[in-house]
């Protein structure tokens, strides 16, 4: 059903391994931890190996080493990149100030792109979308409800500020609305996880055991 496995022997072996590992993980629910630990170690080992192969084959060799070897003088920016990669690879043996440089560049670069994207791609467009001129009555009512809920939830986060009875009531309502929102999101999460559980059951019953194929 997944369509990933071939019809031949390799597919049969892959299906059996997937089925046994699935059952091994579920055995944890019945108190059997040895198979679960084995599956955990298998996952960690496979993930580490896969990550290493991916980094070497799809990043370091084609984007760093091959361009440097083929045209050492044409890609000048790759030389400092090579130094930074070597500094990260030798982090265990190098002095902390040396390792801090590539680490800082890495963290700062990621933060800059993520923060800039969040502001320009999410915050500003969403604010602009919220400030649309009044349209049909239904959208105005929806907008007002959204505004009231947002305001109440924000008031719920006010801590240590002198407040009267009205503000205390608004903050309590805001906290309950926040809980309602989290509950709704957990409902989405439940459906999502339930679909995954049912998918695994269908894999065992249909792909592995061949029932109801």
């Amino acid at each position, binding site marked *: *059903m*997944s*369509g*990933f496995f*071939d019809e031949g022997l390799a597919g049969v072996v892959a299906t059996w391994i997937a089925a046994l590992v699935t059952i091994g993980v*579920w055995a944890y*629910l*019945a*108190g*059997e*931890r*040895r198979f679960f630990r084995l599956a955990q170690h298998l996952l960690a080992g496979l993930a580490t190996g*896969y*990550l290493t192969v*991916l*980094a070497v084959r*799809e*990043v370091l060799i*084609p*984007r760093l080493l*091959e*361009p440097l070897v083929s045209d050492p003088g044409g890609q000048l920016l790759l030389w400092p990149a090579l130094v930074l990669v070597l500094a990260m690879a030798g982090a265990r043996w190098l002095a902390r100030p040396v390792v801090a440089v590539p680490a800082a560049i890495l963290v700062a*670069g*990621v933060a800059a*792109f*993520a923060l800039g*994207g*969040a502001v*320009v*791609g*999410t915050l500003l*467009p*969403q604010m*602009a*979308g919220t400030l649309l001129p009044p349209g049909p009555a239904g959208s105005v009512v929806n907008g007002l409800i959204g505004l009231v809920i947002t305001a109440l939830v924000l008031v719920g986060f006010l801590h240590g500020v002198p407040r009267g009875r009205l503000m205390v009531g608004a903050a309590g309502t805001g906290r309950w609305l926040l809980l309602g929102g989290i509950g*709704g*999101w957990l409902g*989405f*999460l*439940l*459906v*999502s996880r*339930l*679909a*995954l*559980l*049912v*998918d*695994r*059951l*269908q894999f*065992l*019953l*249909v792909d592995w055991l061949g*029932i*109801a194929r």
Partner: protein
Amino acid sequence: MTDAGAAPPASGRFRGRQRPRGMALWWPALLGALSIAVLIGSAAATGTLQLANPDQSSVSEVRAAFEALPDDALVVVGMDADLGTYPEIMPAVRAAFDDLLARGASLAFVSVSVEGRAVAAAELARLRSAGADADALLDLGFTSGVEAALVRLVSDALPAGASGAVADTVTERGGGLAAFDMALLIGGGDVGPRTWVEQVGTRLPQLPMVGIAPTFAQPELVPYLRTGQLEALLATVRDDAAFVESVAATNGEPATAGGSPSAAAMLLGMLVALAVLGRALVGALPRLRGPAPPQVTEDDEA
């Protein structure tokens, strides 16, 4: 400290493992019941339990976006699903691939997440073994850096050594993501349509974006649909099922597409979840009413 709370010594058939107690005893029963529901659901007549959403608005938006594509369109597939949640959206993703390929579009797969790359490689292999036109598929590979990688892809999406009809067309059109007519964004837990909208959408606002994401991502992604940053979105199991049905009705049943989850099993699972929630609420009611009034003892009265 007493031994009252300690686990009893392992003995008999539970030697070497924890003795199942409490909720652990319910899990096998739940799995068994769900298995029966899967079997009953597959044996029951079609339509007895309907998983597909009768509200076809999401499906219509996705199909309208596909229909608006030009002939021989180039579609970049941002495959950043994760292995844990991909099975939920897999039927809809495969239906989207089938639909696009049937319309004559070419698909170029790119990933900026490690797990997404594994899924992309597996899907490309599946499409090729299923007989998809090799000239209509292109593997753009993995680009590291997530946000930084997306920014790089805007100007340079083709990896060194990329060849074929699709690669040639992309080169002719500039080599970046602007060469594509649409971005189909497959999301996971971390990276997905939101990251693409923030990094690529701000730089290429003319590139139409369609998202397919797991259910839990829907509350996060719907606002982008409202602002028009996403053209269409499939992000619930029911919308996914409706989309798969819609594509199958138009193009015929795909050969290798995975099926949607069993409606009977989903219904049973949700009923069990509601029962657990109801039990928890009943247990929490005394606390919700507030603290109990202090007991007045004879000493206090004195």
